[in-house]
């Protein structure tokens, strides 16, 4: 009896162990597949084309930074310019999304005014509109008003598209802040503008950080509107410039990989340094939005 019981529990323990190993293995394969491309591109970009074509998976036998040197020194590839364009467009867009989102979200949360409902519905509709139905008409409108193909062109659609989610997040947050603060500020003779920016804004910091994180990634990665609104190669953002590289050296994979790694670097570094906050912010944005 006892031995029987003992035997069963060992059997169970073994089965348990096997399940554990299998489950861990599944998750490990998934996790590693998510960063594998980064590694693969990393060491492959150190090979020359011939070595890569001979064996696509082996580690480089004579690692060289040639690909990087050639990409960065050739002005035709304008890789530095594209990163600069992306940084500028993203930074300015995110600044205005956060600012406008904060102001509109605050007004919607705190006051009933003429057009309150209309504004609310307009923003809601903005979230539901399939964004690609705007691709052609925005191109037409921007072209006719001479707004396309300028350094500031992309900022306008990015701010407009980012606004609804920003407003909803801020509005939801401000509703949880007691009004006593502003009442006290106004009794103390604080002007509206001062109470808005010196009293409320600091409290809304967490939600504004969430909005900024969310929008940094979506602006940096946006492709389709950049594709139709930007003609000049000198004004291209990173995703657009990348489609150019691959056209230019379509058979030279190590070079493409080097170019991709350079352009991905800012966002990859940002992610791995602040991954906790970024994941938290993106989840908050997705669930509450």
């Amino acid at each position, binding site marked *: 009896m006892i031995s029987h019981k003992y035997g069963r529990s060992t059997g169970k323990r073994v089965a348990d162990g096997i399940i554990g190993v299998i489950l861990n293995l599944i998750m490990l394969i998934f996790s590693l597949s*998510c960063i594998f491309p980064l590694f693969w591109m990393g060491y492959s970009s150190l090979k020359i084309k011939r070595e890569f074509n001979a064996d696509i998976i082996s580690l480089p036998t004579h690692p060289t930074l040639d690909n990087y040197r050639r990409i960065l020194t050739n002005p035709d590839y304008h890789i530095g310019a594209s990163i600069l364009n992306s940084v500028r467009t993203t930074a300015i867009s995110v600044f205005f999304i956060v600012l406008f989102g904060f102001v509109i979200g605050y007004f919607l949360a705190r006051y009933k005014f003429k057009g309150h409902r209309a504004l609310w519905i307009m923003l809601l509709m903005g979230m539901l509109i399939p964004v690609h139905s705007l691709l052609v008409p925005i191109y037409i409108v921007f072209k006719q008003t001479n707004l396309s193909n300028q350094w500031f062109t992309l900022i306008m659609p990015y701010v407009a598209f980012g606004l609804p989610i920003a407003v909803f997040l801020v509005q939801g947050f401000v509703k949880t802040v007691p009004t006593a603060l502003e009442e006290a500020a106004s009794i103390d003779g604080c002007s509206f503008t001062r109470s808005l920016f010196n009293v409320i804004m600091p409290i809304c910091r967490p939600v504004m950080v969430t909005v900024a994180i969310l929008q940094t990634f979506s602006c940096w990665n946006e492709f389709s509107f950049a*594709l139709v609104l930007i003609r000049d190669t000198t004004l291209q953002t990173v995703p657009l410039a990348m489609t150019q590289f691959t056209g230019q050296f379509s058979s030279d994979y190590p070079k493409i990989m080097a170019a991709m790694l350079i352009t991905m670097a800012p966002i990859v570094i940002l992610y791995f340094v602040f991954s906790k906050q970024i994941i938290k912010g993106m989840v908050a944005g997705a669930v509450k939005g």
Partner: protein
Amino acid sequence: MLSRKPKAITFLVYLTIPILLYVFVVFFPLLTSLFYSLFEWKGGPNKTFIGGANYTQLIHDSVFWSAFRNNLYLVFLCLIGQVGIAFIFVMIINTRYIKLKGMHRTFGFFPSTIAAVSIGFIWTMIYDSRRGLLNWFLEKVGRADLQQVWLNNSKLVMTLVSIPLIWQYIGYYMIIMLSATAAIDTEILESADLDGANAFQTAVHVVLPMIKSTIMVCIVLCVSGNMKAFDNIYVMTKGGPGNASMVMAMYGYKISFEQQNMGYGSAISVGIFVLGIAVIGAMQLLQRAISKEEVI
């Protein structure tokens, strides 16, 4: 609501610029596309009014409708792939066996922060027939007979362009659902375990109902997100071979910018708008039906 309200002028000062910008970028173009969709217009100075002819053409345009079907197919695959696999992973991670949970979170979420354009390039390199990882792998496992020029296979191509999207977002939905399951009381799970429920029963009968609203959020996000698929398809196939991987946005782009047919392109834009709203509307109804059930 605050007791004291600032003057009307304050509202104007703060709200005018953002609202004007928003209307100019979102609503004004919608109206212009309605207007131009009534013209024969190749982008040049000449436009001819043709009434509803573009819409008649659109209704009979088999490419447009197959593109719409491709959109739906892609959404369907992504629902199963992204939300479905993510749910399974969440159940796995929540078992007591799993080590390195933090790593799975950080690495799993990573692809969703990368541009769809880059993801498209990475997978083009994986599918490449001569130097691709997939064919390399098939050769190593001795199944070289299965090797092919993957993205030229018009039967498989829609599935092949969906896989990068699925892979990219599993981690994203996994993390959203993990944050929901974290709120579940562990006592409930333990008592289910004591009552002899196996892992599958616990998942379906205990966890699933408790995170139903979060799963619904994931489904809505997944549908609206994947109706927008464009970037990775532009990079990987441009809608080809033929029109096998054409989605609506890609078709609108091709007609408007490669054929310079702005009039018909505008009509397609209106079509994308209507169908997109219809799909999202259907989702809302479904969501409401499910949440009503919950009340009863």
